[in-house]
């Protein structure tokens, strides 16, 4: 083949490629992308509205325009100057962090024991823990309340946290993930002279970090946004968590949506930080969960 011939044929090749990429639009792909786009819009809308409302003056909030006519930071200034916000924020942060650390440690410890130790009654314990997953929070609130009252835990940080210090869901999740850790790792460590606690902490735990991160995010978010239980167990405003505190903006004659939205917008910041910190692990975690069923 001469040079020009090669050029010509490569040109035909290229044109062939472009036309084929036009004619090869996969209808399935179009539908998928459309659905995903719509889903994305539906999920993003509340957040957009939250931010837009937080930038509006009170008289404007029922006009459903997304761009405020006269944008203002007045709401942010009000919320941040009102001292209560910081207290609620601190309460939420303290409670969410403490429950996250505690639940991640205890869930993985119990999950590990259920997965790797063969003791009689193991199945029974596992099923018992699992069955608590079927009971909705609304039903648990009353026994929790009675328990908190009898122990004198009403109106305290501990009262808000104690039901979440260990979770059945996390135990189940961690048990499943420890199944993916081959016993050889643990046995090798056992031969190398580690005790069972060291094996769990320095061999098994590092091998399930994706699951730990995912669990940490779930638990942090769950506690950060928890509403019913903190509302019931506390009645002094200095113990309110953010979601509970924010609703007090509405107990006067009219609901001050712009302030609630401002508080909510500020409240999303820590969740964003937590997510960004752990997201590369959570994505890996979800992939792993998908692979290992």
């Amino acid at each position, binding site marked *: 083949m001469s040079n020009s011939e090669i050029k010509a044929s490569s040109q035909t090749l290229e044109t062939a490629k472009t036309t084929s990429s036009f004619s090869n639009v996969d209808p399935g792909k179009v539908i998928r992308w459309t659905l995903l786009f719509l889903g994305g819009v539906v999920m993003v809308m509340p957040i957009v509205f939250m931010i837009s409302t937080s930038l509006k003056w009170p008289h404007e909030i029922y006009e459903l325009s997304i761009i405020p006519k006269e944008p203002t930071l007045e709401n942010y200034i009000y919320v941040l100057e009102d001292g209560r916000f910081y207290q609620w924020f601190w309460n939420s942060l303290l409670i969410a962090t403490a429950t996250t650390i505690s639940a991640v440690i205890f869930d993985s410890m119990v999950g590990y024991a259920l997965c790797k130790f063969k003791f009689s009654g193991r199945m029974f314990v596992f099923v018992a823990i699992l069955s608590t997953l079927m009971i909705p929070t609304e039903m648990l609130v009353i026994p929790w309340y009675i328990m908190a009252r009898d122990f004198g835990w009403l109106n305290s940080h501990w009262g808000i946290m104690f039901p979440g210090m260990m979770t059945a869901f996390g135990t189940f999740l961690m048990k499943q993930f420890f199944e993916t850790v*081959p016993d*050889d*790792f643990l*046995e*090798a*460590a*056992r*031969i*190398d*002279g*580690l005790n069972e606690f060291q094996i769990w902490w320095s*061999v098994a735990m*590092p*091998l399930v*970090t994706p699951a730990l991160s995912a669990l940490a995010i779930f638990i942090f978010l769950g506690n950060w946004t928890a509403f019913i239980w903190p509302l019931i167990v506390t009645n002094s405003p200095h113990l309110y968590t953010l979601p509970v505190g924010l609703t007090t903006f509405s107990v006067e004659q009219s609901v001050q949506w712009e302030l609630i939205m401002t508080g909510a917008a500020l409240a999303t910041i820590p969740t964003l930080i937590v997510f960004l910190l752990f997201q590369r692990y959570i994505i890996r975690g979800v992939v792993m969960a998908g692979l290992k069923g």
Partner: protein
Amino acid sequence: MATVAFKNLVKAYDKTEVLHGINLEVADGEFVVFVGPSGCGKSTTLRLLAGLEEITSGDILIGGRVVNNLEPKERDIAMVFQNYAIYPHMSVRKNIGFGLRTAKMSKEDKEKRIEEVGAMLSMTELLDRRPAQLSGGQRQRVAIGRAMVRDPAVFLFDEPLSNLDAQLRTQMRLEIKKLHQRVGTTIIFVTHDQVEAMTLADRIVIMRDGHIQQVGTPTEVYRHPANLFVAQFIGAPSMNLIPGKLVAKGIELDGGALVPVTPIGASANITIGIRPNDLTLAEEGEPALLEGQVSVIEPLGSETLIYVDIGQREVVATVQGRILPKLGETVRLNAPQDEIHFFDSDTEIALKV
């Protein structure tokens, strides 16, 4: 370094007994290989010795001391697993040093020991890598390094080479053998590959269904298999077995040929065994033991396997040289009389001549 002994070792899971009384003495510094088909209890024996499973009855002794109730870490052993079990979240250095965590040594001494082991396995440049950045063979070397670093009394290997490709396996096999020659530690090695067993072992222990079938040097088990199972298991290709009957003048084979030998204590039904490389093509006019048509020819390079159809069964012969029979050709095969093995067909036990 230490001796190892099993005395009437029995292991049962729930009610199923999987080891039925293992007796074995391993000398100090000996390289013993357990070999047998899948499920015969090799790993179980090793795990009992390591202390990873509890024994049901009997005794295990390491260095003359009964270790039945000792924790794995108190037994002064190190184990290398089939899938390496090196920790993905630690560097090679940390992995090798892991076995020293609980050792009473200064930090510098530990560091020195790790370097020493790294050098011995020629992986000094790899010490700061993560396992994910290593090849399969290198990972297995890390696992061996982690076992070596503590300088244990006994090394245990459970099929350490079976995840490697054929070429690497041969290479690692050689390295393990050299390692043993250098450090001289007692090694107990489990494999289901008889070639690995033959090449590595000072003594081979052949197991089947939780029983020891034979213990001996590679030459002993090859030259004098104790029973039909060992005869077939050791050596590749497998020994040819041909059933026959005891008659007045010797043993009459199914094909009609006569082997003019009467083994000691022979009963009515005798099976003879001939290794493929002991079968030779008979010269013209020479009386032959077996006769049949060539059904398959497998060239292996230096030699060729020919499968010969002799009536109800097929025998394999290893033929040297360039002049080969053709497919479908009728060949006559002979074997030197002292290379013929005799077995009682009913008890499967080998018979002496």
